[in-house]
């Protein structure tokens, strides 16, 4: 099987998982969510295989163009959700997350995204490509789960559910923030120093990572030191995730800079 076949298989599995999760959402039967999570895990396994095949075929990390990068981001989203669901048992996030993942996979497979693996330009030939991109995107995936939890916090009026979503979003940020700091900022600085001779150049992508970091720092300080919880915290997380999203997509298409390759 080649990479695009496995990619399509992954896509189908994610769609099936989303159906099971939606069935759970409407029937409230735990068994639907269990089946959904099993199918999502199967999808993740297939997706991992697709990424491995891609890596072997292209000879480099599977996130050097937009198609690869979005595919990897979806993989990270599903992985982050499965980890958080194992720990905190929050199948209710499943349907929304799977819908976002399906949207991302559809975007990745759209004709807008060139699929050919192109040879790596000299600047990207480094093991820091692996470390910098994978850890950053994994951190952003945890932000995504926190983002969904916060939207659900705002949408529900049930106090017990609100309490739960508030705690879930904090736990996700507690994982995502260190990962994002390590991958996005620290590894990014180390790599920039090795490749360009300067650890920080105020390039738009760097600045937007810093903005994202500021927003989550704001979240942690208002929450831990000033005791903010609930609605205001949820809004800050939503802003933080949108900043992360803009760092990922917006900077590439709207602002020019050193990160012009991906």
């Amino acid at each position: 099987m080649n990479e695009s076949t496995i990619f399509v298989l992954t896509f189908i599995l994610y769609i099936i998982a989303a159906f099971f999760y939606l069935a759970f959402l409407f029937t409230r039967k735990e068994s639907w969510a269990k089946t959904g999570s099993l199918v999502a895990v199967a999808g993740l396994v297939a997706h991992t295989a697709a990424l491995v095949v891609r890596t072997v075929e292209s000879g480099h990390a599977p996130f050097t163009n937009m198609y690869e990068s979005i595919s990897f981001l979806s993989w990270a989203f599903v992985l982050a959700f499965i980890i958080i669901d194992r720990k905190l048992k929050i199948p209710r996030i499943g349907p929304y997350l799977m819908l976002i993942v399906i949207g991302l996979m559809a975007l990745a497979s759209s004709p807008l995204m060139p699929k050919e693996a192109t040879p790596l330009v000299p600047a990207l030939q480094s093991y820091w490509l692996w470390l910098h991109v994978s850890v950053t995107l994994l951190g952003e995936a945890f932000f995504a789960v926190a983002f969904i939890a916060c939207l659900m916090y705002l949408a529900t009026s049930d106090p017990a559910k609100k309490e739960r979503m508030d705690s879930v979003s904090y736990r996700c940020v507690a994982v995502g923030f260190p990962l994002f700091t390590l991958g996005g900022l620290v590894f990014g600085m180390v790599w920039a120093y090795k490749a360009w001779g300067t650890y920080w150049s105020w390039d738009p992508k760097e600045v937007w990572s810093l903005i994202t970091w500021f927003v989550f720092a704001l979240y942690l300080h208002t929450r831990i030191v000033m005791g903010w919880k609930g609605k205001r915290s949820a809004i800050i997380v939503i802003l933080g995730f949108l900043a992360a999203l803009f760092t990922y997509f917006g900077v590439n298409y709207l602002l020019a800079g050193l990160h012009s390759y991906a």
Partner: protein
Amino acid sequence: MKRLIKFFTSIKLAIVLLIILAVASILGTLIPQGRSLEEYGARYGQMAGLLMKLQLTGLYHSIWFLALLFLFAVNIIVCTLERLGPKYRRAVTPRIESDPKGLLVLKFKDRAKRNVPPDEAAAEVKRLLAGAHYRLKEETVGPRIHLLGRKKILGLFGSDVVHLGLLVILAGGIISGATSIRSNLDLAEGQVKSAPKADFEIRLDKFTTEYYPDGSVKAWKSDLTVLEQKKPVLSQTVAVNHPLTYKGYSFYQTSYGFNWDNPSVEVWAKKKSDPAFLRKLKIKVGERASLDDPEKTTLAVTKFLPDFVLGDANEPVNRSNQPNNPAAFVEGTRDGAPVFSGWIFSNYPDFAQMHAANDKDKEKTTDLAFELKSFDAGQFSVLEAAKDPGVPLIWLGCGLLMAGLALAFYWPTWEIKAVVEGAQGKSDIVFGGLASKSREAFAVEFETVAAALRKSK
């Protein structure tokens, strides 16, 4: 005044600064930074002057942005120090004595009874806590034995270590900004140059460009030798992502260029009347070679332009030093007299047209056709030499930052306090627990300890 000082040392200022820094940073990504006055004029019209005056066109290096960062640093120092004292006392000289009633209102609490004197019961509690890796402190006040068991005390200081890391990074940034040296070195093979203020020299021994099958660049490699008083001391191949570091200087492969002063070209000569006629000439620009034909034609390549365009007066002009449209000017002579000349193009082999020097030779010259098959110019390597004394502090700061985050999020401080009292060979144990984070995991651990204590022996 007091309120002003209070504001400057408050967490509220930190929040305000985080918001202002974020907004200012966004502004800096919306306004292109560090462009020319003309570009801003074209983009913003009347506003351009105002933007430049407010330093919004070099925002991240502007006085007011640096002032914000300075204020941020001061605020971090003050806020951290303010919380550090109580935390330090809590870690080193904690209050061991606790009130049993106070323990019983904690979220995690329990009590147990023993048919042994208090000191024996206390010994049992100590064994249990030590077995669960709690560090113990003990104090006897009157009839009560107070026990304090704690683990992962360092977790208390996670946020302080994060703040210290940020300050170290900011300090590194200041040192970088004030002292770093950066300059481009263009080096042709064999050339020796020195980095600014360096007491050694760098020689480029060999420069190679490797290509992928599709023609895109795979790698630039510069074989460099470090010379101390003209003597080689170190040789290393530098490529993108693989700099050479020596005496605090680092040499980065950043780019390359062509040396068009003296290129060599390969020209093929064909005859329309004779398909079997083919001469492949490899000559340097400025040299001449015989075509070895019956007419005894000699060909000279007199000019070479890597990027041929026609200028305003229809004259050939070189647009750039990149080989976008390589063209060579060839001249044919017979018996020392010029007979034809013309431009030939590597990208457009059919475009070449030879002009006869006079009408007499027209017929004979138009029979010849030339193609510019290839060209070879020496490439020079463009390196960046940089010395940045702030860098070690940056890495130290990053290490502290990550260690602090790990401590703050994943090294939760847990405490179990117990009060043992009793008389006539009987004891009463009251105990309670506190967890700064990871309360679920702590609940499990507390329950194990509690279950063991509840079991009466």
